[in-house]
């Protein structure tokens, strides 16, 4: 009797790229819901539009590159990218700005580098970086945090604004700076102290909304850790480093530097630590490398936030460290079975 031949191992576990991505999406849901609650339907509209743009562009890119379309769309990586970018931009952003961001994320940052698995930079953060450099004004227009169904614009209204059917609202009346933005501009504009800014009602209102959103994202992140989709090193090292630096500076001068609470719970810190910096393709992959990578991101987040030009800095911190990944990975190989405590790289060659 004749038999089929292939090579061992002959069976595999049921882990799967789509499952991994689907679990990431599931983990994003709690934070997303709280964000919709605080910032209105615009958040959801952004996510839906971003996913449509991303999947369509991904399909076109795959077609153009003569790759099988369905399995690669089915891996859901474009959906995750779109979702993360959509969460990073303000609600009620004109649709075409979002489109530009997604275009850069999917086409430039991902497919021009060879598609899934080959992008050296985090695609969502490339998209965001392009937008914040090109449209700084539009990207600073966060509407005032409120409650869904009361103060926030309704779904249809939001959709019409995003699509440009109705003229954009009087931004001055409904928007406000994000807490990080408020601190930065406030301190630069000559406010006497951080405490003074923090006392403003709008500020504490906004900060509170971000704390809830961050906690919900942290929940999702912890679930991913439990499910072993991400490793503990990156989120932990980002949060510890950022907490440490902001804590030290706050202790040194509570007047002129934001508190660790502000730095950890506002902006995209938690989202970045659990969902963005952990993008496996562009992040460091060795256990020690992940710690170095995460700690450096935490460090750069603080530096850019406090002394840089942009209110938030997850994107730039992540992109800077993406560049260092090949080197970090090379020099942080773990000790291999049967090798001494410190395996030097050259040792391997002599074998």
């Amino acid at each position: 009797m004749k038999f089929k031949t292939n090579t061992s191992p002959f069976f595999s576990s049921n882990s799967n790229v789509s499952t991994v991505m689907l679990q990431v999406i599931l983990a994003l849901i709690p934070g997303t819901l709280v964000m919709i609650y605080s910032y209105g339907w615009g958040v959801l509209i952004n996510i839906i539009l971003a996913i449509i743009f991303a999947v369509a562009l991904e399909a076109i890119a795959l077609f153009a590159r003569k790759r099988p379309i369905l399995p690669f769309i089915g891996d859901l990586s474009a959906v995750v990218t779109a979702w993360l970018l959509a969460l990073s931009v303000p609600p009620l952003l004109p649709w075409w700005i979002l489109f530009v961001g997604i275009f850069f994320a999917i086409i430039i940052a991902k497919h021009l580098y060879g598609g899934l698995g080959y992008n050296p930079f985090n695609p969502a953060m490339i998209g965001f970086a392009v937008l914040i450099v090109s449209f700084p004004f539009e990207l600073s227009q966060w509407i005032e945090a409120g409650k869904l169904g009361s103060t926030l614009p309704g779904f249809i209204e939001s959709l019409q604004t995003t699509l440009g059917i109705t003229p954009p609202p009087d931004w001055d009346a409904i928007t406000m700076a994000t807490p990080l933005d408020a601190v930065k501009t406030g301190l630069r504009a000559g406010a006497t102290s951080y405490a003074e800014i923090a006392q403003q009602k709008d500020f504490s209102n906004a900060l509170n909304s971000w704390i809830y959103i961050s906690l919900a994202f942290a929940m999702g992140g912890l679930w991913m850790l439990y499910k072993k989709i991400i490793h503990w090193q990156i989120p932990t090292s980002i949060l510890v480093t950022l907490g440490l630096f902001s804590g030290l500076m706050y202790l040194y001068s509570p007047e002129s530097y934001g508190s660790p609470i502000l730095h950890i719970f506002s902006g995209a810190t938690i989202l970045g630590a659990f969902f963005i910096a952990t993008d496996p393709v562009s992040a460091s992959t060795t256990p020690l490398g992940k710690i170095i990578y995460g700690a450096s991101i935490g460090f750069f987040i603080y530096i850019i936030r406090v002394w840089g030009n942009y209110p938030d800095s997850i994107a730039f911190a992540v992109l800077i460290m993406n560049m260092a990944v090949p080197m970090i990975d090379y020099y942080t190989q773990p000790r291999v079975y049967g090798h001494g405590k410190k395996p030097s790289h050259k040792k391997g060659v002599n074998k």
Partner: protein
Amino acid sequence: MSTNTSYKLWKIHGGVHPPFHKEESTQHPIKRAGIPKQIILPIQQHIGSPAEPLVAVGDKVYKGQLVAKANAHISANIHASTSGTISAIEELVLPHPSGLKGLSIVIDTDGKDDWGQSGKYSTYESYNDVEPELLLKRIQEAGIVGLGGAVFPTSVKIEGAEQNEIDTFIINGAECEPYITCDDMLMREKSAQIVAGIRIVQHMINPKKCLIGIEDNKPEAIQAMQQACENDPNINVINVPTIYPSGDIKQLTKILTGIEIPSGTRSVNAGILGQNVGTIYSIYQAIVDGIPTISRITTVTGKGIQHPQNFETLNGTPFSFLAEQAGGYTKMADHLIMGGPMMGFALPDDKPPITKATNCALFTSTTALRESNSEFANQPTLPCIRCGKCMDACPVNLLPQQLYWHIRAKDLEKAEQHFLNDCIECGCCSYVCPSHIPLVDYYRFAKNEIRDQKIAQEKANLSRERHEFLLFRKEREKREREEKRAAHKAALQKKKANAKKNGDKNNGAKTDSKADAIKAAMARAKAKKEQREQEKKTTDKTKKENTVKEISDASNKEKEVKKDEV
């Protein structure tokens, strides 16, 4: 003592928990597979040199008769596993995935299973009184090789252990590969013999301690072994956690002793001797029963076979015969895997024989293999997303994702720097990969490439050396020639100089002598002319001869004169 359950164990990095499928083949006791019509004995069933056939076609052989002899230190004897007549010694398909052929001795069996007059060896029942050298000789004669799958000649391994101080003697009963249960069943049924086998090796190598490692998913085997060595304080049965690949000797050593066998060295150098329980049983048979390695326990299992179970199989039994003994194939059978699903290899045909290495014949189907993840059965391979699941699963603590990356980029040097050669090809990385990348295939490929490159490099080095030597030699010869010439020249110049010095004195004399010589020659010629005229009547022949002689004489003389002049 022997029922030590609180023994300190160490953790290995990584490992996986695939579905183990052990129950299917442990429902029945070990059965004798019987005698097939033909026995096929490849002369290479072990690591090392092939054995050398001692029989010829037409010879009658008895059971246990030596048919092929180890002809090198690392080689192993092969014995007839039953009686019959040698019908062929030819190249036959080996149990190898490529369908590779190798020289094999074919026995047409006579069904008598006749040991003949002197078939069995003398038995050493009180082995503790026997010199270890004699025991080692017996182990060598009996053709015992590592039956866990490595098929390294056991006598060579024990000899190495005797030369080193062995701290821990590990008996490997972990059997971590899914589906395989031959060691499990052997421990259940032959525990006393295995313990006796352990004592034989203890007597030979005097280890400080002796540990039997068995995965805790084999409670019956653990119990049987514990009972068998209950009163022996020197042998401990240790439950090790069920995790693949704990049965790899490197991993088992780490789990039991915390020691890591240094990369590129053998375990005996680290004071560890590891032996599979099947090998220990073979040692027992050779020493106490006087039987060479002519059979082994083989698990026949999988959805492709009617009655999965373990067989005591004669060496050389074709897979097809074994399948018949297990009730034949089911409709599902489309795969024959020799070994387990993690590290075994697929055979294209069931005609090749069971050899000493065959611990399992897994008859199965593509769907059965994928039943654990049927929903993704046809999913294509996706790119690596560097999720690191492979890294978490690697028992050697490699970075499989980085290895894959560098091998894809054909950067083999980087792959080596990432310790490719420490990969044990256990398959854990491929097993967990969410992109379904056949990672182990890449590593096998790269290892072969590196090996080939090294061989090519060595060849290139050799021919470069040869070429360089050729150039050197030519250069040397040229130099020597020139030196010679120079020396000659110098000598001549010296001579010339001397000649010049004495020139004034000798010049006149020399010219005189020259003139004299010419005169003499002319005189001789004249005389000859006269003589010729006188002898005109004599024959032409003589005349000619004379002339020739004269001329040559004259020219010789002239030459001499010239030489002198110079």
